[in-house]
């Protein structure tokens, strides 16, 4: 055990004495997280603008108030001409026209709100359900007014606009841009990618050790192959955990991100880190020099991270790409992290993700053991 710990401790010490490794493991991911996290938050602060074309009638004002319930957009009143110009020049996402004959449109079962837009942008797609929901609400209120005959439509609209229950579209809007779960996953994604770079770089030092002679020297000490292997494994595993924890804590302090239930997070992250260590050792076992390891590692890491939904949500890519992504461990890791961070903790999904990662880890280690010669 003493020999195992000595080997592990030696490599951890080497890590903290190597500026290059520190940059790759902490500075770069921190910088990426800070820049992209900052961009996400910044973009959240600039609300997309929607023009509303309306007259001064009471019901128009109340519908305007209903629309304003969605605080993710900035709602501006404008004339039809101004609204068209703004849309044309892409100063606004869209313009919503509240017709003067809205009651008649309800009766005739025609679309209530006219929308002027240049193209269906992401912002518009996020807005659409809110417009639809508002229109449905107006229709329901109209029918209620008709049945009760006791209040006027503007009164009911006012009541609806002041009611907290109107803000039903918030969830839909969040999905598209600044969902905290998506943002936290982005940080986890960066952590995974840089962990892969950092640990595959660290694991490829075995190649340097082979050339430098320390590997051979270790082999002629009384330390067994198992002790040597475990020493390296523990060192890389701890490196992975240190990197992951530092990044997660930094992102938490900078952007108040949360990481879900730690009872699930810690074992799952451990499995992901073990898988990444296996990946790094596999590359070290496949190549002859550290330069080859760097080149092959970079290609494999970047491509599999793209496929695995590390840079963007896997839901955004076509279905066939989603199927291909199942062949890379990152997609299973991201899926599991999503379950944990979002708090949904769906057991079947978590078990599936865990088993898949275990499979990948075992595969990587088998290839690594075959590749890394002890001679």
């Amino acid at each position, binding site marked *: 055990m003493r020999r195992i710990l*000595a080997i592990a401790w*030696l490599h951890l010490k080497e890590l903290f004495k190597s500026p290059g490794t520190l940059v790759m493991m902490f500075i770069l991911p921190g910088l990426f997280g800070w820049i992209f996290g900052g961009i996400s938050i910044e973009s959240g602060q600039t609300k997309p603008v929607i023009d509303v074309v309306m007259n001064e009638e009471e019901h128009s004002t109340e519908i305007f108030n209903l629309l304003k319930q969605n605080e993710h957009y900035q709602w501006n009143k404008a004339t039809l001409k101004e609204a068209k110009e703004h849309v044309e020049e892409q100063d606004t996402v869209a313009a919503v026209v509240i017709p003067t004959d809205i009651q008649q449109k309800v009766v005739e079962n025609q679309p209530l709100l006219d929308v002027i837009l240049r193209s269906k942008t992401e912002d518009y797609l996020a807005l659409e359900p809110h417009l639809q929901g508002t229109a449905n609400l107006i229709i329901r209120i109209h029918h209620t007014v008709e049945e009760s005959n006791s209040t006027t439509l503007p009164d009911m609209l006012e009541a609806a606009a002041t009611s907290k229950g109107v803000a039903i579209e918030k969830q839909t809007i969040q999905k598209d841009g600044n969902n905290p779960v998506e943002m936290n996953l982005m940080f986890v994604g960066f952590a995974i990618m840089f962990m892969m770079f950092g640990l595959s770089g660290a694991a490829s030092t075995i190649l340097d050790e082979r050339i430098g002679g320390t590997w*051979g020297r270790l082999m002629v000490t009384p330390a067994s192959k198992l002790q040597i292997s475990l020493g390296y494994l523990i060192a890389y595993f701890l490196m992975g955990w240190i990197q992951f924890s530092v990044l997660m804590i930094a992102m938490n302090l900078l952007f108040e991100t949360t990481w879900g239930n730690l009872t699930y997070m810690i074992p799952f992250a451990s499995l992901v880190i073990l898988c990444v260590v296996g990946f790094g050792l596999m590359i070290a076992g496949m190549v002859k020099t550290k330069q080859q390891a760097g080149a092959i590692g970079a290609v494999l890491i970047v491509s599999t991270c793209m496929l695995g939904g590390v840079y963007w949500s896997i839901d955004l890519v076509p279905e066939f790409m989603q199927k291909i992504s199942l062949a890379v461990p990152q997609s299973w890791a991201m899926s599991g992290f999503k379950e944990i961070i979002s708090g949904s903790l769906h057991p079947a999904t978590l078990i599936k993700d865990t088993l898949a990662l275990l499979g990948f880890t075992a595969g990587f280690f088998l290839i690594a053991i075959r590749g890394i010669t002890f001679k």
Partner: protein
Amino acid sequence: MNILNVQELGKSFGKFEAVKGVSFSVEKGESFSLLGPNGAGKSTTINMITGLYPPTSGSIQITGVDVIKNPKQAQKSIGVVPQEIALYETLSARENLKFWGRMYDLSGNALEKVVDEVLEIIGLTDRAKDKVSTFSGGMKRRVNIGAAILHKPEVLIMDEPTVGIDPQSRNHILETVKRLNNEGMTIIYTSHYMEEVEYLCERIGIIDHGELIACGTLRELRESIGDRSRIIISLDNEGSHHLEISSLLEGLAVEKDILIKDKLLTVFHKEPQAILSELIQLVTKDGTKITSVEIVEPNLESVFLHLTGRSLRN
């Protein structure tokens, strides 16, 4: 009592036979050297003795332990100084020594004490906290040796430990090895520097093309070539004096007694002064010019040259 027994040791890499049936033994407390040019098979032999390479054939026993069957047991009693500077450059000399000490089950105060002792032996106490990367080649070589003697091994195996270092560091290393040997440590030393081998070792095995071509004390090896000196004459061309010189050296007209290679004429003779003037006349009679003449007392280089027809440094 033999501390190392090597019998019919062979090693092949694919079709290439690196070591061919090498046999020798080393007594406890002895200093033994494997001498040979680069690529002769010295390191491969050493790597098999240390348990790093499994041999293709033959057997090795160290302190009575079969290295092939129980390599980890055998490795407890040996210290290995590899040809490479096998150290962690980002760590200090002390940190390196402590790490290698731990690999031999040393720990705590005992480890600290032995590290201090070894730093003293290798003369680096005042640089103990400095990173190895800041050391000169000679200092690194000294730490390289230090890492192998922490556990006070019975046998110290050194594979060309002085390659590429300055004369001062070389002297320090040789003195250290001599001292360790005088204190009772068995030394197995490979080198292609005959001066080192002559200074350090009681017995010498000469290895070439994977074969042990001679083995014995320095005196025995000298005697094997008749204790003859070498007359080395540098020529401006290789000429065609071979037969005439052979007839001059009556009774010694053996092919290996006269070598002409790279404009160097080498003649082996017991009394070089007696034939020198006649030899020079013979060589220059067809107009060949002599650029230098040197008489070398019998040494390991002479033995190697006589046995193989090649210089050790070729």
